[in-house]
């Protein structure tokens, strides 16, 4: 009966733990290993202009909706300037303002983005565009082109492809040639295309973006064409008419407006510099979870102050050490002093490192034991004697530190990190066992404690495990379930197989 409750409870706990774990891992993209890195790009936009005599107002189009990319951070560097971000027709606009400035001015806007396949931010469905007002003779040319292309296409997408193909033809139709007489830059070309598309009542706009590479000091905004087919926005290469988007294409802004405007200044020059860096996946996952307003992350360890986080990264490993101890004691059957003493010793090994930890601990206990036997002759009462042992332990730690420092063994200093009360208790317990049951039992218990401590240390020292437990603390529920199951383990301990070996012979 009890058994069934334990199984049910354990499986419920494990299921909860694993479910949260899988959700965080798969859906939120929390990394399984520490230091997993994802590329991120810092795009620095610098605006240079000459200040005029009066007040200055500078506007810059900045990214708003960026399919395929998430924004990690954005900020402006501009001394003395007021800075604000407004939502305009084409998206977002950054605005710098200053009452008075003189000489050449430079303003910076930086944005950090990372690739995020889920960031498919849907834009609004636009209304059908009004027929553009075009002067003759272009009006006729546009009408001819629209009629011609419409005849050769089926829907907005194929219309656009066909249009672009005709426009890029090396020997174009006369009407196309007439229309494109002025379009000597790619931007003007795409602009003209949007006019034609508008004439065909297809919502279209120019987008301009950056192809993100490792490092580019002078990145160019590439114009691209975007049309709405009634369901979604589609992207077309203005050069070939193919429906596509360049690799790692960050859409900077949409529309026909100029990239930057300056009032009260002149000669504005905008430059883009792209720098790729590697960011911890953790940062990105948090960012993504925050964007989804996931409660799981809102109430996670990562919300705590850094120092507290550091404490918990250690504390969360204690259950792992304790699990090792449970396994060693109840399944393997190793004797040890105290219930949690081995885990606490293992914890202090974190600072001293293993070899030194074992050496220092053994030294300390051995010295303490010999002093304890001397104290025995004084016939002190129990509590004062324990206190005396404690004080002796502190003095011994001090001596070891000082001697080690003199000898230049800096690791010796870490002896101070041992839990001295635990050591004092160990010494007392060990000395009682020593007297009552003999040295063999005492040394066996001490060795057992040490073996468990070392194993617990090794388990608790695994970086990937520490990372996993810290990132997915819900896995502690799985540990809890495991401990519960071991709690109902009624099989033999490994050491019992040896102990009762004679009974198995028959």
């Amino acid at each position: 009966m009890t058994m069934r409750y334990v199984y049910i409870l354990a499986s419920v706990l494990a299921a909860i733990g694993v479910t949260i774990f899988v959700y965080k891992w798969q859906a939120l993209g929390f990394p399984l290993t520490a230091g997993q890195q994802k590329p991120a790009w810092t795009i620095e936009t610098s605006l240079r202009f000459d200040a005029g005599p009066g007040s200055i107002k500078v506007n810059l189009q900045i990214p708003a909706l960026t399919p395929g990319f998430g924004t990690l951070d954005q900020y402006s560097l501009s001394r003395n300037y007021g800075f604000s971000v407004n939502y305009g027709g084409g998206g977002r606009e950054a605005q710098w303002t200053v009452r008075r400035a003189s000489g050449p001015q430079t303003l910076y806007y930086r944005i950090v983005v990372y690739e995020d396949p889920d960031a498919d931010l849907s834009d609004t469905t636009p209304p059908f565009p009004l027929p553009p007002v075009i002067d003759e003779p272009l009006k006729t040319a546009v009408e001819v082109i629209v009629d011609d292309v419409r005849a050769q296409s089926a829907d907005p997408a194929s219309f656009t492809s066909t249009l672009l193909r005709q426009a890029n033809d090396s020997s174009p139709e006369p009407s196309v040639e007439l229309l494109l007489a002025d379009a000597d830059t790619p931007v003007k070309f795409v602009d003209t295309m949007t006019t034609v598309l508008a004439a065909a009542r297809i919502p279209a706009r120019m987008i301009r973006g950056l192809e993100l590479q490792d490092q580019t000091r002078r990145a160019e905004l590439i114009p691209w064409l975007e049309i709405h087919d009634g369901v979604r926005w589609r992207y077309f290469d203005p050069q070939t008419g193919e429906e596509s988007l360049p690799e790692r294409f960050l859409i900077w802004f949409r529309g026909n407006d100029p990239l930057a405007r300056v009032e009260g200044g002149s000669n504005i020059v905008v430059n883009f510099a792209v720098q790729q860096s590697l960011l911890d996946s953790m940062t990105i996952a948090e960012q993504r979870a925050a964007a989804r307003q996931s409660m799981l992350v809102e109430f996670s360890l990562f919300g705590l102050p850094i120092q507290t986080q550091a404490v918990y990264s250690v504390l969360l490993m204690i259950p792992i050490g304790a699990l090792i101890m449970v396994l060693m004691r109840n399944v393997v059957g190793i004797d040890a002093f105290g219930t949690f003493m081995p885990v606490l010793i293992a914890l202090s090994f974190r600072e001293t490192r293993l070899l030194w930890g074992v050496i220092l601990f053994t030294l300390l206990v051995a010295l303490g034991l010999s002093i304890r036997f001397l104290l025995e002759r004084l016939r002190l009462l129990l509590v004062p004697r324990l206190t005396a042992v404690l004080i002796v332990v502190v003095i011994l730690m001090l001596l070891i530190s000082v001697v080690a420092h003199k000898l230049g063994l800096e690791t010796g200093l870490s002896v101070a990190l041992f839990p001295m009360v635990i050591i004092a208790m160990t010494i007392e317990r060990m000395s009682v066992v020593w007297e009552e049951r003999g040295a063999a039992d005492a040394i066996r218990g001490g060795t057992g404690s040490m073996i468990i401590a070392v194993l617990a240390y090794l388990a608790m020292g695994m970086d990937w495990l520490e990372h996993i437990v810290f990132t997915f603390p819900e896995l502690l529920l799985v540990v809890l379930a495991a401990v519960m199951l071991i709690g109902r383990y009624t099989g033999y301990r490994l050491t019992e197989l040896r102990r009762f070996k004679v009974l198995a012979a028959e």
Partner: protein
Amino acid sequence: MIGIARKLRAAGVLGLNERNAEYIARLNPRRLYPRVDDKTMTKRLALEAGMAVPELYGTISHQADVRRIGEIVGERDSFVIKPAHGSGGDGIVVITGRSRRKRDCYRQASGLLITESELRHHISNIVGGQYSLSGNPDTALVEYCVQFDPLFADVSYQGVPDIRVIVYRGYPLMAMVRLPTRNSGGKANLHQGAVGAGVDLRTGTTLTGVLHNDVVDEHPDTGALFAGLRIPHWGFILESAARGYEVTGLGYLGVDIVIDRYLGPLILEMNARPGLSIQIANGGGLAHRIRRIDAIRDAGATPPERAEVARVEFTVELPAAPTELEPADYWVADDRR
């Protein structure tokens, strides 16, 4: 390794985990523990139930009373001091006599002398809680020193041999005689190196012994064979053990009984977590016997009835050839002679 486990399972050997989870956790409610963990209470309850126990001379529960030891002991030459909450025989001092010249110098069972001030320090340690399970302040008991029956004189080295009976839901299940050795310091505790000899429940005759998890036939110090000793008052011993269930209410119980030369069987103490080495001493597991009791248990049976059931059910045929020396050993021994 799995093969060994399977064989042990087949032999009905009980492991620590199974004992703790299945029997102790289920049959021994924690609130009843004080009845066995506190030896003064065990003694009182046993007396109330009409069982024979070693006479209590006095108790010391405060440091200030430690000096009263002389007063409690009076002119007696032998007595035992033990912690009320001790476990595994820790902290027990057996005084068997006094120095002729100095009356305040006592002779321990080991023959070593101990002065009264040393004795006081020991008692003060007991009272301070050095031997109690939790380290809490404790009480020291001063009681009658059992004059053990000469029956076991050949198979024990100093100290007092006792009989451990495992009682499952009131039914005696298995028994062994625990015999002190030089290594055990005169203590009848298997952990400390005492020898345990299995006992046939029907006749009260000893079987082979166990020393440190190994089967042995002869006492390591005296060389006497264990097997074939007939324990006196056997029926009464089993009955007393069975009665331990009524006294303590514990369903999985170890009852320790000593046989006094003059007073007969006395209940020494009871244990809520009796050890498992008794299985080695008896050459068989407890699990089969537990299942048998579960099958035939009668909740209304009286202690004598239950003892009788145990005698009928759990008889063991005596091992045919207890000595299994390798032939080579004989030759070596002969050469030396």
